[in-house]
């Protein structure tokens, strides 16, 4: 039994284009000079240069779009290939039918990819295939590994038998009535009803994944959270930017319960946000306050003497772009994509009246950064008996970008980031110890921004993850694994990084010291939700690219080009020799002048006020020697990536 799809939420209708913005339709323009304007129910091709001259902004809708920070980097073509489902992380073609779901890793789908989703989902095959109410009747679906799942299902059946036997004695008409009482039987009944609801929701999730084409029902055992379904669920979550990592929690259930076209619409809105804010050169996304209606929301002093709220330009730019495209509903989006065949996305652009930049904008903004480390514990997280001690944090680290304007520091964007903490690390003796890998405190500068950065693995890196299987020339071979080193979205440094340098002034002028800390993008999005780094300040990849695209747009900089690494390392694995070759460290840009970065100490919790230096033995581990190895502290050690 399936339910009718819920009614779509009301969305504002697109406003017609202002008469002053309407440009003459020119049908014979070459693609590179062509933009579109939606007028009434139709579209006009207009001259993109004329649009700019009229103060409109041309937003790139083509599959060639990439964040501007990637301009000039050879990785740019890999990025566009990944976004368009054309190629893999090395730039090599992916197999027909394979999809890259990389939005959570900072690579939003190209519009031709979204077109495919819209046009398939508009056929309606999935619209009535599942019951959203059943999915939303639970707040999560608990899942387990295969053996535990069998035990839980057996427990459920046994509980059901007990409750059936107990119901007549309790005089309850049904299990719901039984659950309303007190005592163990009532608790059992509640748990039974909850479990039943989860199983019903699970069955709807199975239908949902199958109808969306993510799960092959023939390879799936109904009712089991087997590998086929876990893989499909992870694909679903990555496709729809849900961070549940194959767990089935509230956000996943909500996405599963939404109609496919509504999910597509949200994906389109997210993709257009990135393109619109880049076209406008914006960064303000409403993240500096909890609500724009909050009276304490940050403001700046305008030339008119009045205080103005720091605007949410990301939302405004997205809405302006969608309005210019005539898209207010999923059906509008379907109509838009029906109008445009795939090949249009080689060149498609739209002329948009974006909100004007605030008065503090310029080509050389007085930017600065503050990183608050939040609550920090230096205490070793185990007691003498080896029992892990809780180290709760109420304040988490955050990065704030400021502009200095009329003598005030105005916050533009504030995002969660990471700081270092206690980490397990393989020492030079090959054994694993704990070590406090802290984040530098005090004034630093960003002098270099590195696009498509490369992480050089320290000699202590375990070799187990340094090879992988890959399709090469039509067959599978083991190759050296460059994913963690980069360049790439899985690199330990993400797709862009800024080096924290300590500036010391001396008689010969300023000298700069690299203490190994970077602010960088990260594929490891769960770490942004409360885990520790090796000392670096991680950002979601897409936010890192937004940030540094903005910085390069609004500060003077010069490209110093790819910096040679000349790294070459051979290692043995399973009877074969592998070479890791890293010719460059990435494309460097030097900021002139550097951007000040103040790393605040945060609130020190616990008893220690300074971190413990060097290695600390792991509780319960027997070491070959009582002598502790010396700890190294290179920039690569700090970044760490997935290394322990």
């Amino acid at each position, binding site marked *: 039994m399936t339910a009718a799809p819920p009614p779509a939420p009301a969305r504002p209708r697109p406003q017609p284009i202002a008469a002053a913005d309407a440009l003459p339709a020119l049908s014979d323009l070459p693609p590179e000079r062509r933009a579109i304007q939606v007028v009434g129910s139709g579209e006009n091709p207009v001259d993109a240069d004329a649009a700019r001259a009229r103060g409109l902004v041309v937003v790139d809708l083509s599959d060639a779009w990439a964040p501007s920070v990637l301009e000039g980097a050879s990785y740019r073509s890999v990025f566009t290939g990944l976004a368009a489902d054309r190629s893999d992380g090395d730039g090599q073609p992916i197999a027909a039918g394979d999809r890259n779901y990389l939005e959570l890793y900072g690579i939003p789908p190209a519009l031709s990819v979204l077109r495919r989703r819209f046009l398939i989902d508009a056929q309606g095959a999935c619209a009535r295939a599942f019951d959203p109410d059943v999915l939303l009747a639970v707040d999560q679906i608990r899942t387990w590994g295969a053996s535990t799942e069998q035990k839980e299902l057996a427990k459920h059946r046994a509980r059901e038998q007990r409750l059936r036997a107990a119901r007549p004695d309790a005089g309850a008409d049904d299990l719901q009535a039984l659950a309303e009482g007190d005592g163990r039987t009532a608790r059992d009944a509640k748990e039974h009803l909850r479990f039943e609801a989860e199983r019903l929701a699970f069955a709807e999730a199975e239908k949902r994944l199958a109808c969306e084409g993510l799960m092959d029902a023939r390879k799936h055992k109904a009712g089991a959270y087997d590998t086929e379904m876990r893989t499909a669920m992870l694909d679903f979550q990555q496709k729809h930017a849900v961070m549940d990592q194959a767990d089935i929690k509230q956000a996943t259930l909500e996405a599963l319960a939404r109609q496919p076209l509504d999910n597509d619409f949200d994906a389109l809105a997210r993709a257009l946000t990135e393109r619109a804010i880049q076209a406008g050169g914006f960064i303000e996304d409403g993240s500096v306050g909890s609500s724009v209606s909050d009276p304490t929301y940050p403001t700046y002093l305008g030339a008119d003497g009045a205080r103005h709220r720091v605007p949410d330009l990301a939302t405004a730019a997205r809405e302006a772009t969608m309005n210019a495209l005539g898209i207010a509903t999923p059906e509008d989006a379907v109509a838009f994509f029906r109008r445009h065949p795939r090949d249009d996305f080689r060149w498609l652009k739209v002329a948009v009246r974006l909100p004007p930049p605030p008065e503090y904008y310029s080509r050389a903004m007085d930017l600065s950064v503050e990183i608050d480390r939040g609550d920090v514990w230096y205490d070793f997280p185990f007691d003498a008996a080896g029992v892990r001690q809780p180290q709760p944090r109420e304040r988490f680290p955050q990065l704030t970008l400021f502009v200095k304007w009329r003598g005030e520091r105005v916050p533009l964007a504030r995002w969660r980031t990471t700081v270092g903490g206690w980490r397990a690390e393989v020492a030079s003796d090959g054994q694993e110890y704990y070590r406090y890998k802290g984040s530098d405190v005090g004034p630093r500068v960003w002098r270099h921004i590195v696009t498509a950065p490369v992480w050089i693995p320290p000699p202590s890196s375990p070799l187990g993850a340094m090879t992988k299987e890959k399709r090469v020339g039509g067959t599978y071979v083991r190759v050296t694994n460059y994913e963690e080193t980069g360049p790439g979205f899985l690199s330990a440094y993400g797709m862009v990084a800024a080096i924290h340098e300590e500036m010391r002034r001396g008689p010969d002028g300023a000298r700069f010291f690299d203490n190994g800390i970077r602010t960088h993008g990260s594929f490891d999005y769960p770490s942004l939700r409360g885990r520790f780094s090796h000392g670096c300040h991680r950002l979601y990849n897409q936010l890192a690219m937004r940030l540094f695209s903005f910085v390069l747009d609004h500060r003077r900089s010069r490209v110093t080009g790819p910096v040679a690494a000349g790294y070459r390392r*051979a290692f*043995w694995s399973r009877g074969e*020799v592998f070479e890791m070759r890293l010719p460059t460290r990435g494309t460097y840009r030097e900021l002139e002048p550097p951007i000040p970065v103040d790393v605040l100490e945060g609130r020190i919790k616990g008893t220690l006020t300074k971190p413990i230096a060097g290695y600390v033995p792991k509780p319960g581990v027997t070491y070959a020697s009582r002598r502790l190895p010396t700890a190294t502290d290179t920039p690569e050690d700090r970044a760490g990536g997935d290394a322990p």
Partner: protein
Amino acid sequence: MTRSAPALVAALMVATLGCSSRGGGTVGAKPGREPAGEAAVSPGPPTVAAPVYDDLEPAASDDRADAGTVTIKLLADARRQAHVFWGRKDLGVAPVVLVRPRGSAPMDLTIQAPDCLPLHTRVFTDRDDTLSLRLYTEREAAGLPGYSPTAPTTTKGPTTATKTRRQF
């Protein structure tokens, strides 16, 4: 102990047998798979007449501007008779000269020579390059990081890296 060339080929083939059926895309973000042009399950007739599109799949090329080519020279001691392979394709005996589009994907190559362990290396296409191939006998490989004198093991399915990166 050294290996003969047939043994090396056999070893390479054994290694390739353990491949994932889902393609070798990016780890932790392995490509998902959807049917082309239609949903996998059609529980009922479509609610609207379904137009047919023949352009839903990605375009074959990205129209990358012609950035010219790069020349990559692979050098090895000619007496080694080292064959350079790209997948199954034998590109010849080193020295080998490769001409590739500038900025195209890097190439993962396998070098096989009698009495030497297979060598896996990568060449990049952002500039002209000359790469001297250092081949290792079993005895020489004993000095390499990770070396273990135990017999090599083969595994089927994804590598450890794949498993750990794809977090469930």
